[in-house]
Each structure stands twice: as C-alpha cells, then as structure tokens.
C-alpha cells in the first residue's frame, strides 16, 4: 500500500511537470508578447526592452522553462525597473498586472474555491443520495417519474442560465460575498449560501440520477435477496446492504467531479462574485497575465492527480475486493 502510494506520487509529479511544460510552451511561446501587455499603451521601446530583459523573455525557451521549474524549489529574484523583489520558493513568478507573487494570489483564492465547492458538495450529496435512494425504492411510480423528469430538466439547463435564475429570483438568500471562515464563520456561511444552493442543486440532479441508477442495480442483486431471506428488517436491507453497495460507484464519480469543480467553478464564482481560483484565472486570461495562468494550471493538475489518487485509495476501503499493488 505505502509502496503503491509512493509509486503513484512519483507518477503524479511527472504528470504535473509534463502539464506545466506543455502549458508553458503554449503560453510563453505564443505570438503575443507579455512585455507589451505589461508595458501598456503608452510604451517606449526602451521600457519594453527593459521589461523583456527583466522577464527573461529573450532567453531560449528551454532556459525559461528551466528557470520556471527551478523556482518551484529554489528562491528567485525579480528585477523590474531597478527594483529587486524576492520570490521565495516555491516561486511561481510575479503577476504581471497585480505585482503580487502568484503563490500569494493562489493562497488567497484557494480557500474561497474550497469553501464553495465542498459546501456545495454537502448540499448535492445530501439531496442527491437521499432523493435517488427514495426514487429507486418507488421505481416506476408517478413519484419516481417526477423525480427523474425534474433531474432531466435541471440537467439539460445550461448551468450559467440556471445560476443567473438563482441570482435573479432567489433574492431571499443572503447577499453573497467572501469573508474568511477564521474571521467570521457566520458571514463566511451567509456569504456562500447562495452559491452553495446554486451549485448544489444543479449537481444534485446528476447525483440523484447516479444514486437512483446505482441503488436500483444494487437492490436487484442476489445478495439483497439473501439479506431479505435472512429476516432482517426492510430498512436494514435497503440501507445497510443496498445503499452500501450503491454508494461505491457514486463515491468514484464524486471524487472525479470534485477535482473538476475545484478548477472549474468559474461560472459560480463569477456570478456570485467570489474571489476564487476561477475568477483569478479568468482575470489573468483577459490580461495575459501568464504567471497567474501557469499557477492556475499547476493547481488544476495537482488537484486532479491528487483527487485521482485519493479516489483509488478510498476504493480499497469501500470495496474490500480491491487491492492496490
């Protein structure tokens, strides 16, 4: 097990590095000149050259990548206009437009996204698994059909339209905004609740369908019939034997979904004005703020490989038949 995790970590690190190099190539070697972006509209050739030198943009691409990767483990120094700024390792560079180290920006944005996504996960898992399990038990009845129909409608709605509808019509929810949990847990929660409801309900539709399908399959299994033949109560049959088996595939989907949401909650963050990763990256994209974009890519790839690893490890606990090795 430990050896397996170690092996997976090594492969995870290599995946992250490959992703970084590939996106580095895409961003830094693109035809747009970042120096021009920083320099702005009233740019003098001298200032432009100065910036280019400060960003090492004239160095060969390989050297640039090497410097970037080296910064992950060794402190770097940035010099612009005669001012030297320290960038302690892990250094992901300085934002061109905000003048802040990328690591600091990410560290500010990550808790926002984590709060948003994990809170929403509680909402959609609770609603989805509960409704799905119920619907599976009354399969074929009008109630079940109503549940399936509702999830289908919710799922076919473009998410941004759904989110806008929530903002426009769910005005009874407290105004959204970001406050750190450690500053004031109450404002933290009240500022996020609208976003939780929105992201939660939109995903609850999908989780209702996963849970329903998974539960129907589980309840049709031979071992459920065995459980019934033992004379244990119906609730015990459904929840201990059925749900236990039904949750395993749902947990897998959840792990992958969570990784996707941590890096892709852009709509929710934008619409509810939360300064999370999505907003940070989106802003950086508009302003050609390459170091921040690269930081976003790094966080995204790390989250994805880590979540994959967690799902695989969790599986050994969920299903005793699975052995890692």
């Amino acid at each position, binding site marked *: 097990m430990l050896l397996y995790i170690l092996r997976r970590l090594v492969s995870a690190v290599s995946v992250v590095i490959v992703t970084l190099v590939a996106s580095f190539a895409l961003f830094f070697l693109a035809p747009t000149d970042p120096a021009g972006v920083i320099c702005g509209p009233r740019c003098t050739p001298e200032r432009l050259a100065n910036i280019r030198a400060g960003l090492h943009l004239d160095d060969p691409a390989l050297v640039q990548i090497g410097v970037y990767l080296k910064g992950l483990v060794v402190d770097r120094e940035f010099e612009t206009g005669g001012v030297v700024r320290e960038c302690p390792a892990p250094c992901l560079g300085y934002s061109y437009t905000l003048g802040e180290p990328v690591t600091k920006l990410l560290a500010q944005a990550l808790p926002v996204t984590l709060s948003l996504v994990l809170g929403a996960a509680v909402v959609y898992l609770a609603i989805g698994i509960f409704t799905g399990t119920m619907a599976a038990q009354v399969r074929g009845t009008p109630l079940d059909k109503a549940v399936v129909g509702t999830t289908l409608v919710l799922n076919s709605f473009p998410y941004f339209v759904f989110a806008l509808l929530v903002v426009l019509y769910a005005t009874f929810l407290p105004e959204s905004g970001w406050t750190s949990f450690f500053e004031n847990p109450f404002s933290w929660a009240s500022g996020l609740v609208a976003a939780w409801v929105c992201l939660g309900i939109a995903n609850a539709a999908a989780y209702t369908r996963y849970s329903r399908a998974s539960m129907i399959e589980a309840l049709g299994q031979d*071992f459920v019939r065995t459980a019934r033949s033992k*004379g244990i109560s119906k609730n015990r049959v459904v929840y201990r034997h059925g749900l236990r088996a039904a949750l395993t595939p749902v947990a897998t989907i959840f792990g992958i979904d969570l990784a996707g949401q941590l890096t892709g909650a852009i709509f929710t963050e934008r619409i509810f004005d939360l300064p999370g990763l999505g907003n940070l990256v989106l802003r950086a994209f508009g302003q050609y703020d390459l170091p921040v974009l690269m930081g976003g890519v790094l966080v995204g790839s790390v989250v994805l490989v880590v979540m994959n690893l967690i799902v695989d490890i969790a599986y050994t606990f969920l299903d005793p038949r699975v052995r890692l090795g």
Partner: protein
Amino acid sequence: MSDQTSRVPQTVTRTARTRGGSEEAYLEVTDLQVQFPTADGMVKAVQGLSYSLPLGRTLAIVGESGSGKSVSSMAVMGLHDAKTARISGSIKVGGQQIVGMGEKDLEKFRGSGAAMIFQDPQSSLHPYFTIGDQIMEAYRAHHGVSKSKARTRAIEMLDRVGIPNPKRRVGNYPHEFSGGMRQRAMIAMALVNDPKLLIADEPTTALDVTVQAQILDLIADLQRDFGSAVVFITHDLGVVAEIADDILVMYAGSAIEHGPVEKILGTPLHPYTWGLLESIPALAGEPQPLHPIPGAPPSLLAVPTGCAFHPRCEFRSRVPGDRCTTLKPDLIPRTADTGRASRCHLKDPDQIFQTEILPRLP
C-alpha cells in the same frame, strides 16, 4: 419390474436411508397461484400447485427454467414483493399461513421458520461484508444476543459446515473463499437459526462437480442432524437421484408428476418426464443419438390451453378427441399405485413407457 428398478442410478439406495421421520406435513402448499402483472399481460408463473412435505424428508422440484420452481419456492419464503406479485392459495409452514402474512411477521418467519440457499454463492453473499458479519446478522435478526455471542455462534456454524480454521475464516470476505467454501458459508448462514425448512435453489449449479458432491453430502448430513424438511430445486436429475425422497416435476407453472423418487425416475408416467430422461446422454456404451423434447417451453404469458405440454407431446394422437388441447388433466394417480400422481390424459402411460420409451433409453 426388476429391470426397471435396476435402471435407476445406484445412488437411489441412499434415499432409503434418509427416509423416515413423521408423516405429518411441515410444509403444506395448497392450490398456489403466483402471477405477475406486466405490460404484456399476466405472467402465470405458478398455477394450482399443491404438495406437502414432512420433517426429515427431501422433496426435489425439477423443471426447466421458467417452469415455476424458483417462483413457487420464493413464495414459500414470502420473498415476493406484494406490489408486483399476485399470490393466492395457501402455504402453511409449521402451521403458519404465509400467503397474505404481514411484512413484520414475514421478517420474523424468514430465516427462523424457513431458510433458503441460493444458486450462486458468489453473488448471493454481500461482497463488502465479512462472512462472519453476514452470519452474525442472520443470527442476531432472530436472537437478541450480543455481538460476541453471535460471533461464537457463527464460528460454531462455520466449523459445523466444514470450513477449516473457522476462528480465522470468520473475518474473511466472500472473495477470499473458494466457490465451495462460499456455498458452505451460505449453508451455515441459512441454518444458523435452526430452521425446520430449508429451501435449496440449485445450490450446486455454480460449483464444479467434485465440490457439488461434497455440498450434497453436507446438506444430507445436516438434514439428518437438524431433522429439517428440505426442498431441493434443481434441473439435474443426477442430483435428484442422489438426494431426494420425493420428486415433483414442474412444467409451465404446474406440477405434472409427483411421487417417490425411485418411482418417478424408474417408471415415469408423463411424456415430459420421459423426455427429460431421454435427454440424459449415456456415459457408457455405444454413443447413441439423444432424443430431446421437440420445441421450446411455452411463454407464461400465454400458456397453451388444455394440457400445457400438448404442443410438444409426441403421444398426443393416442388420446382420443381433442381432450389434450381443451381439457387440463388433473394431477391424480393414473395407475393402481396411489402414492404417485401425474397430469396426463394417456390411458395406459405405464405400458407406453415399458414398450416404447424404455428401449430408447441409454
């Protein structure tokens, strides 16, 4: 007569050994009907099934897939969902009426009054719970005992069904058991509450032949020790000869022949049973072409009128008039022997068997 009885497999002699026990019926099924309404119409899975079984005896229910043998046994366990199955008639187990029993009473009955073992122990055991856990759960469902007491009982049962090193094995998951051991564990779980009726639904079908024999021996042993009645569902006539006292042949939801095993397998009186015997390949002597039953079992949505077997019966012309197609024969004695019954209009089935079928058998 002597040449017929010698044709029966040698193992039938064991039935003489297990024979005995009280003649009072522990399980009594009377005019059982099980139907499932579907979008295509009413599936008549079991029609007018009646049989009884005293303690200490084994009844084999034989038939093709879809003949109603499993469905009727599920009804005995009260396992059909009241929402999807229409059940009428009477099923009495130890004096208790199962048909129409409430869910709470059924829970009390299942596992303690009657228990069931299933075809595929791989899929019938929960993959995420340990063997011990599953046996303990069955025990604790009917006995208010502590976990450690239940565990002791589980270990005792595993030991009883021949699992080596049960103290360690009790903590294993089903996938850590071999196929035969899983079925032993299933049997341990079924018998943990000492039920007086055990229903075994093709318990050896998913196992390889050597393990099959061990499981059959185990069931026979346990039956003797526990003095229980056993319903053994199978389509393997070799297994029937091995384990059963009585045999009930089912076709299209009805019993078509019922009686002591050596008589039914020795001198069957129904053309369907003849067909079953003729479909067994000979393992010794010159290879001979098999004589299978033509056609396919009928759909339970539209069971043929009259005798359900008539479209496939090669002796239909022997019955005068159109009785085979219009009148369903009763399950009654057809010869001087009142201990057996069959559902066929033929006038002299024993004669046809002696002169026409027997020479064809391998």
